[in-house]
C-alpha cells in the first residue's frame, strides 16, 4: 500500500527528468497511474465490504510514536475510490484541456503529488502522518491554483488559499498533538477505544476547537469560505479535482473520521450544526447572484460542504448515512458540472451564463452530461441525487424540537442549489444558439467522455442502488457509526412526507429558475455587501499587519550600528537593573583580598587616562591608539594574575584590531561631529549605567562560593590524558577540540563574508 501511495510522489519527482516525453506523446500514459491505483483499491472491495479493514504498518520514527501506518476501511475506501477514480478522468481530461501547454509536465507533476498526498491523508491511521499529508495537499493546491503564475490574480488567490488552509494546518497540528497526548496514542484505531476517556478529558473542548478550525478552513466553511471562489482561478481540471471532489472534502473526512472518537457531545453536534447550516444557506443564496459558471459552482460547492458538516453535526445514524451518500452524490454531479464548464470555457472562451445559450446544437454529448448532472443535482427521480436528498430530509425531519427550522434551512439550500445547478448545467445548452458560437465544435473525446461517465454513474446508482449499497455505502456507514447496523438505500420509499418535500423543492427550484434571470444588475447589488464580507475583512487585516510589520522592522532594524548597540545595551541595562533592584548580594571580604601592588595601581591609572583620551579626543587616530593602550593594559593585568596565554592572545589581537581600525579610519574624512550634545550625553549616561551594573555584577560574583571542580579536573588530567602541560592549550586542542574546530570554521566563514561583501560591492561599483 505504501508503494501505491508513494507512486504519485515518485511520478511527480520524475517529471523534471521526463519533461520532454510528457510534453510530447508520453502524456497519454500518465492517466494510467490513477487508473491502476483505482483498480488496486477496487480489488480490496470484497474484503472491506465484509467489514474487514486492511492494515499496513511501516515503522518510521518509533521513538515519537510516528509510524507510516495505513488503514483501509469503509470511509477510506470511499475517498480512495473518489480520489483515484475522478483522478483518472481528470488526468485524461487534462491531456486535451492543456494540450501543448508549455508547463504541462509541471501540471501533471503537481497533480500526481496532490493525488498521492490526498491518498495518504485518507489512508493514514497515524494522526501525525495524517497531518503531514494534510499539509502536502495544501501545498500542492497552492501550486495548482497559482499554475498560471504570470497572472497576478492567480498568484494572489493561491497565496490566500495557502494562508487560510495553512492556518488550519497549524491548528490541526496543535489539535493532533493535544489529542495524542490526551489519548496516549497517535493511532486513530487506538484512540477509538479511548473515546469515552477523551470526551470527559479536560482538553476535550480544546481538541475539538482545534480540529474544527482545521476542518472549517480546509472545507471552506463560513467564515473561512472565501478562499474557495478565489481558488477557481486554477485551470478547470484542478477546480474539478481539488476544489469540488476531493481536497475540500478533507475537512469533511477529518470530521467524519473523528465522529466515532469525539462526536456525540452537545459541543460537537451544536457547533457543527450551526456552522454547517450557516454555510449552506449563506453560500447557496450567494450562488444565486453569480454570472460566472465557475463562481456559481464554487458557491454551490461551499453550500454542499456546509450540508455535509451539518449532517455530521446532526450525528444521528440517519444523518451519517445521508452524509456518506451525499459525499458520493456530490462528487459525481459537481465534478461533471466543473468538467462541462471547462469544456464550455475551452471552446467558447467565456463562462458567463448570461451570454451562453443553445450550445446543445454544437456539443450534444457535453449537453447530455450537463443535463444528467443538473438533474442529479436537482434531486429528480430516478437519479442518485434523489436518494441523497431523500436521506437528508429524513435526517432533518425526525429531530424533535428543531426539526422545522433545520428542515426549512435544508429546503432553502436545496432550492438554491437546484437553481445553481440549472444555471450551470441547463441554461448554457438550451435556447437559440447565438451566431458567435456557431463555429464552436465538439472537443476531443478524452474531454467529453469523463463528464459523461460521471453523469452516467449518477443515473446508474440511482436506478440500481444495490450496486453500491453493500459494497461501498455499508462499510462507510459502519466506520462512521462504529456499530453493526445494516442499512438499506432505495429509490422509492412510497408516498410520504419526504417525497412531498422533494417535490416541493423541485417545484420551488423550477419556479425560481423561471423567475430569476441572472444579470449584471443583480450581481452588482450583492457586491455592495462585499465590504463587510469575511474576505475583505481578512484583506484589511492583512494590510494592517504588513504595515505594522514594516513599521516595526524599520524601527528596530534601521541599519545604524550605533542604534543596535544602544538597543542592546539599553535592554541589558533595564534587565540587569531590574535584577539588581530586586536585591543585591554584595559582600566583599576585604580580608581575603590580596594587597594592592604598585604595578596594579599604575596600570589602572593608565587605563583611566586612556579612557578619558578615547572619549574626549578630537582625532580618531588618537582615540584608536588610546583604545589600544587600554587593551595592552588589560594584557598586563592578565600577566599579573598569571594567565600568560590570555595575555599573549590579547596582545596580538589588540595589535591587529588597532591596525584594522587605522586602516579603516585613515580613509575617512577629517574628524566631524556627527552627533549632537544631547545624543552624546544620552550615550554617556547609558554607558556609565551599563558599566556600573556590570561592575556590581562582577563584584557579586566574588561573593559566590568558588567551585574549582572543573579547573582541578583539567589541571590534573591535562598531562595524564592529553600529554600536555599547558592546560589552556590542551583544553583548546584536545578536551574541547571540537569547539575549536567549529570556531575556526566560523572564522573562515567570517573572512569569506568580509571578502565577498567588499569585493563584490566593488565589482558592482566598477560595472557602473
Amino acid at each position, binding site marked *: 500500500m505504501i508503494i501505491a501511495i508513494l507512486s504519485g510522489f515518485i511520478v511527480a519527482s520524475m517529471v523534471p527528468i521526463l519533461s520532454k516525453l510528457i510534453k510530447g506523446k508520453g502524456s497519454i500514459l500518465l492517466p494510467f497511474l490513477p487508473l491502476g491505483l483505482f483498480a488496486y483499491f477496487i480489488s480490496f472491495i470484497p474484503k472491506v465490504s465484509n467489514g474487514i479493514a486492511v492494515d499496513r504498518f511501516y515503522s518510521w520514527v518509533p521513538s515519537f510514536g510516528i509510524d507510516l501506518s495505513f488503514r483501509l476501511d469503509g470511509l477510506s475506501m470511499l475517498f480512495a475510490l473518489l480520489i483515484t477514480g475522478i483522478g483518472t478522468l481528470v488526468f485524461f481530461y487534462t491531456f486535451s484541456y492543456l494540450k501543448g501547454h508549455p508547463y504541462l509536465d509541471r501540471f501533471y507533476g503537481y497533480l500526481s503529488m496532490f493525488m498521492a498526498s490526498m491518498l495518504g491523508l485518507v489512508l493514514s491511521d497515524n494522526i501525525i502522518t495524517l497531518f503531514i499529508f494534510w499539509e502536502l495537499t495544501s501545498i500542492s493546491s497552492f501550486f495548482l491554483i497559482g499554475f498560471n503564475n504570470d497572472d497576478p490574480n492567480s498568484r494572489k488567490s493561491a497565496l490566500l488559499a495557502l494562508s487560510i488552509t495553512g492556518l488550519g494546518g497549524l491548528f490541526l497540528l496543535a489539535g493532533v498533538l493535544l489529542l495524542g497526548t490526551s489519548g496516549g496514542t497517535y493511532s486513530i484505531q487506538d484512540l477509538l477505544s479511548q473515546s469515552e476517556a477523551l470526551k470527559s478529558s479536560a482538553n476535550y473542548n480544546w481538541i475539538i476547537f482545534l480540529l474544527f478550525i482545521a476542518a472549517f478552513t480546509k472545507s471552506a466553511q463560513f467564515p473561512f469560505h472565501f478562499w474557495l471562489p478565489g481558488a477557481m482561478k486554477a485551470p478547470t481540471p484542478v477546480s474539478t479535482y481539488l476544489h469540488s471532489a476531493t481536497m475540500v472534502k478533507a475537512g469533511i473526512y477529518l470530521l467524519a473520521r473523528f465522529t466515532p472518537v469525539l462526536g456525540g457531545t452537545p459541543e460537537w453536534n451544536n457547533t457543527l450544526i450551526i456552522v454547517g447550516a450557516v454555510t449552506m444557506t449563506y453560500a447557496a443564496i450567494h450562488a444565486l447572484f453569480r454570472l460566472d459558471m465557475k463562481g456559481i459552482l464554487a458557491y454551490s460547492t461551499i453550500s454542499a460542504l456546509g450540508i455535509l458538516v451539518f449532517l455530521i453535526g446532526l450525528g444521528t445514524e440517519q444523518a451519517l448515512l445521508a452524509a456518506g451518500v451525499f459525499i458520493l452524490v456530490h462528487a459525481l454531479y459537481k465534478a461533471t458540472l466543473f468538467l462541462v464548464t471547462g469544456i464550455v470555457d475551452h471552446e467558447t472562451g467565456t463562462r458567463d451564463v448570461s451570454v451562453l445559450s443553445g450550445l446543445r446544437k454544437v456539443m450534444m454529448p457535453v449537453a447530455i452530461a450537463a443535463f444528467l448532472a443538473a438533474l442529479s443535482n436537482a434531486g429528480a427521480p430516478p437519479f442518485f441525487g434523489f436518494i441523497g436528498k431523500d436521506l437528508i430530509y429524513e435526517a432533518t425531519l425526525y429531530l424533535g424540537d428543531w426539526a422545522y427550522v433545520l428542515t426549512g434551512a435544508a429546503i432553502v439550500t436545496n432550492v438554491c442549489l437546484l437553481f445553481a445547478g440549472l444555471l450551470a448545467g441547463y441554461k448554457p445548452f438550451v435556447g437559440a444558439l447565438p451566431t458567435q458560437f456557431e463555429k464552436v465544435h465538439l472537443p476531443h473525446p478524452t474531454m467529453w467522455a469523463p463528464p459523461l461517465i460521471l453523469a452516467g454513474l449518477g443515473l446508474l446508482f440511482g436506478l440500481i442502488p444495490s450496486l453500491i449499497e453493500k459494497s461501498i455505502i455499508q462499510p462507510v456507514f459502519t466506520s462512521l457509526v462504529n456499530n453493526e447496523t445494516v442499512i438499506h438505500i432505495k429509490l422509492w420509499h412510497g408516498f410520504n412526507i419526504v417525497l412531498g418535500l422533494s417535490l416541493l423543492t423541485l417545484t420551488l427550484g423550477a419556479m425560481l429558475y423561471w423567475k430569476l434571470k441572472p444579470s449584471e444588475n443583480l450581481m452588482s447589488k450583492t457586491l455592495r455587501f462585499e465590504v463587510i464580507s469575511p474576505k475583505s475583512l481578512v484583506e484589511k487585516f492583512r494590510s494592517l499587519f504588513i504595515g505594522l510589520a514594516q513599521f516595526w522592522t524599520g524601527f528596530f532594524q534601521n541599519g545604524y550600528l550605533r542604534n543596535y548597540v544602544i538597543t542592546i545595551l539599553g535592554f541589558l541595562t533595564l534587565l540587569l537593573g531590574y535584577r539588581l533592584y530586586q536585591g543585591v548580594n554584595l559582600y566583599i571580604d576585604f580580608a581575603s583580598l590580596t594587597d594592592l601592588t604598585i604595578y596594579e595601581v599604575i596600570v589602572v591609572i593608565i587605563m583611566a587616562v586612556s579612557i578619558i583620551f578615547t572619549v574626549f579626543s578630537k582625532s580618531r587616530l588618537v582615540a584608536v591608539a588610546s583604545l589600544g593602550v587600554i587593551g595592552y593594559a588589560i594584557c598586563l593585568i592578565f600577566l599579573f594574575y598569571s594567565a*600568560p*596565554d590570555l595575555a*599573549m*592572545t590579547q596582545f*596580538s*589581537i589588540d*595589535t*591587529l584590531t588597532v*591596525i*584594522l581600525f587605522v*586602516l*579603516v579610519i585613515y*580613509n575617512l574624512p577629517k574628524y566631524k561631529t556627527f552627533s549632537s550634545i544631547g545624543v552624546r550625553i544620552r550615550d554617556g549616561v547609558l554607558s556609565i549605567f551599563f558599566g556600573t551594573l556590570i561592575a556590581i555584577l562582577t563584584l557579586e560574583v566574588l561573593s559566590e562560593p568558588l567551585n574549582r571542580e572543573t579547573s582541578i579536573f583539567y589541571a590534573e588530567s591535562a598531562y595524564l*590524558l*592529553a*600529554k*600536555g*602541560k*599547558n592546560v*589552556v*592549550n*590542551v583544553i*583548546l*586542542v*584536545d578536551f574541547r*577540540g*571540537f569547539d*575549536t*574546530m567549529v570556531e*575556526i*570554521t566560523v*572564522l*573562515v566563514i*567570517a*573572512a*569569506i563574508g*568580509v*571578502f565577498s561583501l*567588499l*569585493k563584490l*560591492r*566593488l565589482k558592482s561599483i566598477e560595472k557602473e
Partner: protein
Amino acid sequence: MKTIIFKTASTYLLPLLVLFSIFILLRGHYLPGGGFVGGLIASIAFVIHSFANGIDQTKSIIKFHPGFLMPIGLAIALVSGAAPLLIGESFMTGLWFEEPLSVIGMVGSALFFDTGVYLVVIGVTLTIIFTISETI
C-alpha cells in the same frame, strides 16, 4: 609610513617573527603559546611588512592569496581529528608517536590540529586585513 628605518627593519622582522610564531606554535602544548597565538603573530609579521612596503610587495612574497590557507588549515584540522577513526578510536582521540623528534619534541595529532588552527588564523586575518585595505 614608508620610512627607511621601518622598511629596513621589516625585511628582517618578517622572517624572525614568522620563525617566532612557529616556535610559539610548537611549544604550545607544554608552555604558553599555541596555534591561535602563533597564527596571530605570523599575521602581524606580514601586516608589519605590508605597512612598510605596501601590500603588493607582501603579496609578492607570499606568492598566493592568503585565503587559500583557510581551506588547507581546515582540512589539516579535520584530518587530524578524523585520523583516529582509521584505527577504530573515536573522533579526535589524541594519538602520539612513541619517541620525541629532535627540535620539534613530542608529535601527536593535537600538534597537527594546532597547525591547522595556525594556518586558518593566518588565512582569516590576512584575508580580512588585505581585503579591507585594498577596497577602502
